[in-house]
């Protein structure tokens, strides 16, 4: 004998009711997702703050943090021009005229970068700078690059370095996209 309810079939559900049920289900999913997201965030090495602070604010904060520990001496070296062209940058790299910094994400740098470039990602500026500062000479010219003309990371790193007392910091505005398009040599970290 079949066990179950043999009453009349439930009435056909109206469109509005179905939408309400779906909206309710969606709201449950949103709430659960938010809870999971917040929980995961607790276990991150660097939890994401709920209130957003812009890229430039984060770099400024990193510079302040670094400056608190060691105030940079004022540099007597005159400032390098703000930007360099591909030809100038090629000459700078090929003849090792100074330090080349890659402001892109570390993973991008590891995959491929301009030969000799050091990784100083805008995202983890404070940590990356701490690891690199002994290799950065304030008397040497520095050129920073990121993805291309639309990215702001190189400009933010340039500003941060200037705030830290490095006066000869220029940006290669064409960035990695112009360098790659010109089929210039590349290097990868293995």
């Amino acid at each position, binding site marked *: 004998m079949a066990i179950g309810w043999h009453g009349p079939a*439930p009435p056909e*559900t109206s469109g509005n*009711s*179905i*939408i309400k*049920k*779906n*909206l309710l*289900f*969606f709201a449950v*999913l*949103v709430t*659960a*997702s*938010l809870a*999971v*997201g*917040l929980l*995961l*965030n607790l276990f*991150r090495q*660097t939890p*994401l*703050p*709920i*209130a*957003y*602070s*812009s*890229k430039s604010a984060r770099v400024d904060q990193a510079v302040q943090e670094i400056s608190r520990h060691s105030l940079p001496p004022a540099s007597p070296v005159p400032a390098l021009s703000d930007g360099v062209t591909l030809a100038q940058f090629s000459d700078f790299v090929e003849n090792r005229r100074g330090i080349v910094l890659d402001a892109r*994400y570390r993973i991008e740098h590891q995959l491929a970068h301009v030969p000799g470039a050091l990784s100083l990602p805008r*995202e983890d500026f404070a940590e990356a700078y701490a690891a690199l500062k002994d290799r950065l000479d304030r008397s040497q010219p520095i050129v920073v690059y990121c*993805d*291309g003309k*639309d*990215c702001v990371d190189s400009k933010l790193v340039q500003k941060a370095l200037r705030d830290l007392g490095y006066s000869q910091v220029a940006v290669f505005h064409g960035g990695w996209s112009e360098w790659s398009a010109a089929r210039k040599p590349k290097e990868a970290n293995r």
Partner: protein
Amino acid sequence: MIRWEKATFVRIPMGGLFLYSGILKVASPQPFADSIASFEIVPHAVIGLVALGLPPLEILLGALLVSGSRMRAASFGALLLSVVFGLALGQALARGLQVDCGCLGSGQPSPLKTWFSLGRDILLIAASGWLYITSEAPKNL
């Protein structure tokens, strides 16, 4: 066992896309928060909440779509989300904002990529709308 109906060929790639997109963002919430900020529609005070909550939502919806369970509700959720994404991209293009879509990981902003993302989003709206209409309403509703 999977029943290879027409809807299967839509829901599995779509669910896969949602899963992939969600996993990428869960892995790196800060670049995603930067992407959200570039749209200039979400108040800074809550961008973190959106950046943390949205990726798990995409993963949940993606998992439901791939598994084929609660199809009507899952496709409804995917439709809602795709419409919201579409509106965000549309307003950014209309205002001439340089946005980084952040849809499938973060990258550099470009209008061409934004148009491409909008096109992909319109396809998602069509696909989720079709899934919603064609999937059967649960008998117990």
